[in-house]
């Protein structure tokens, strides 16, 4: 059950260039959140009025974790928050990644930049179930890689500028490795639009099972403003609009119609 809460910052640490991990105390929901879901953070006294959505990157006994990148004024403000700072949040929101119905699939997680966030939470869940997923993470360069090693996954890193790991983007990296991952695969992706598009295309070409977590500008995050639409192809209709905040953020690869002019 989603809840609107005034709560406090427990920890806010820099983990890579412009990338931070924020721990927020919300004990009464940690047990009900699912990987793929997100939360809204609200800001007071700002000319920017929309709350900001962030994927849930993990939970512990009392807290929710998020991983965020400073890209504008609100995330910059967040980077100054100190332990104890009071914030308002609404969580959890949206749907979540679905486990594959089959048993012996290879779970493959593909993250571009801070797209890593919901997949880290998903990795935690898989690991608890005894599954060690393949985890592809790409970034522009080594300084922007949110994690460098991982005991809960088979980690594959790539950088656009060749400063670490595979030289190229994360989709190319995954493609290059696809032959060596035991079939069938079940793929989960989250990253910038460009990457999500490339993944959706690859998913259809390779007839892979694919779930993608999308981002859209959101005014409410609640399913009431009808602002965060994405074009969807479904079994029942050729093309209609879905709400990323309510029907998503996770969509099946084959559902997504990412047109050129969408942001």
């Amino acid at each position, binding site marked *: 059950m989603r809840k609107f809460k005034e709560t406090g910052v427990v920890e806010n640490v820099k983990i890579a260039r412009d990338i931070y991990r924020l721990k927020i105390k919300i004990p009464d929901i940690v047990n009900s959140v699912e990987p793929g879901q997100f939360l809204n953070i609200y800001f007071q006294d700002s000319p920017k*009025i929309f709350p900001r959505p962030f994927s849930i990157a993990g939970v512990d006994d009392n807290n929710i974790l998020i991983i965020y990148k400073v890209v504008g004024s609100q995330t910059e403000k967040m980077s100054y928050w100190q332990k104890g700072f009071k914030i308002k949040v609404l969580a959890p929101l949206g749907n979540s990644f679905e486990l594959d119905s089959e048993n012996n699939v290879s779970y493959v997680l593909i993250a571009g930049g801070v797209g890593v966030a919901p997949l880290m939470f998903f990795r935690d869940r898989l690991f608890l179930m005894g599954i060690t997923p393949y985890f592809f993470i790409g970034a522009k360069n080594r300084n922007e890689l949110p994690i460098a090693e991982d005991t809960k996954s088979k980690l594959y890193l790539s950088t656009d500028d060749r400063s670490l790991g595979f030289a190229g983007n994360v989709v190319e990296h995954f493609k290059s490795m696809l032959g060596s991952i035991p079939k069938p695969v079940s793929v989960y992706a989250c990253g910038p639009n460009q990457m999500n598009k490339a993944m959706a295309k690859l998913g259809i070409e390779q007839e892979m099972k694919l779930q993608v977590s999308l981002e859209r*500008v959101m005014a409410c995050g609640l399913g009431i*403003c009808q602002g965060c639409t994405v074009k969807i192809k479904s079994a029942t209709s050729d093309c209609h609009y879905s709400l990323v905040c309510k029907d998503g953020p996770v969509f099946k690869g084959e559902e997504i119609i990412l047109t050129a002019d969408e942001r």
Partner: protein
Amino acid sequence: MIDLNTKLGNRLSLSNPILTASGTFGYGDEISDIVDVELYGGIVTKSLTLKPREGNPPPRIVETPSGMINSIGLANIGVDLFLEEKADFLKIYRGKVIINIAGRTDFEYCEILKLLTEENWIDGFEINVSCPNVSEGGIEFGTDPKILSNLTRKLRDLTDKFLMIKLSPNVTDIRIPAETTQKCGADAVSMINTVYGSAIDINTKKPLINSVIGGLSGPAIKPIAIANIIKAYQVIDIPIIGIGGISRGEDVIEFMLAGASAVQLGTVHFYNPLAINEILQFLEEYCSQNNILSIGDIIGKAEV
């Protein structure tokens, strides 16, 4: 305890003067898990059209300084599905239920009203006249006094329920549509609908709203709403329901002093879903501090 009861003419009374604004609260059920809907004097629904509408292509919303532009394009489930899916929730709702209606022709507005006026759980109608009239070359119903009075009269003839016309601020003189609707028998006017606005992405050179021009709402437009209400209050006697950028209890008082008998909360639901709780608390405090027994006593009391 302050008396928050609010009479909007002879056809509608509210337990308090705070309503939801159309399009910012769905049909009431969508966020009833977060907000206590019973705290409102009533719910004004998302604009309903005769047939379901997918709405405009994205992008549909963009943030602007202290505001936002939207061009949802009246995405809604249509009147039939509304009756099927939403009636159960609204029937047990104890506040008032006001259905916001939109259309492309007089006929469409009238058809919806006819369908709904029989439902005894519906307490009134708000008419969104900021829609292009396709029979009149796309000119908005609200901006032409003749088109506006035709529509208002037809709707008045079809219902004995509370009928409120929602005025657009995108006119030279708000007093003209305000007087027009009063003359044609409307019970109240609500104002303001969104203000024309646009924004362009300087990197892609594309508008940040697919329809190019959308509707500006939020705190940025509050002064515009206040100005329009002050002007309208000087020329009409029917109640004015104030809308536009209301975020706090202070804003509600300001709107009422300007001449509003009640108000609607809109965009604030996005940045502070629980605004209603804070606002009701503030009204209590303000009234008791200022020895106001009934909130209605402050309507139009600004010394303008």
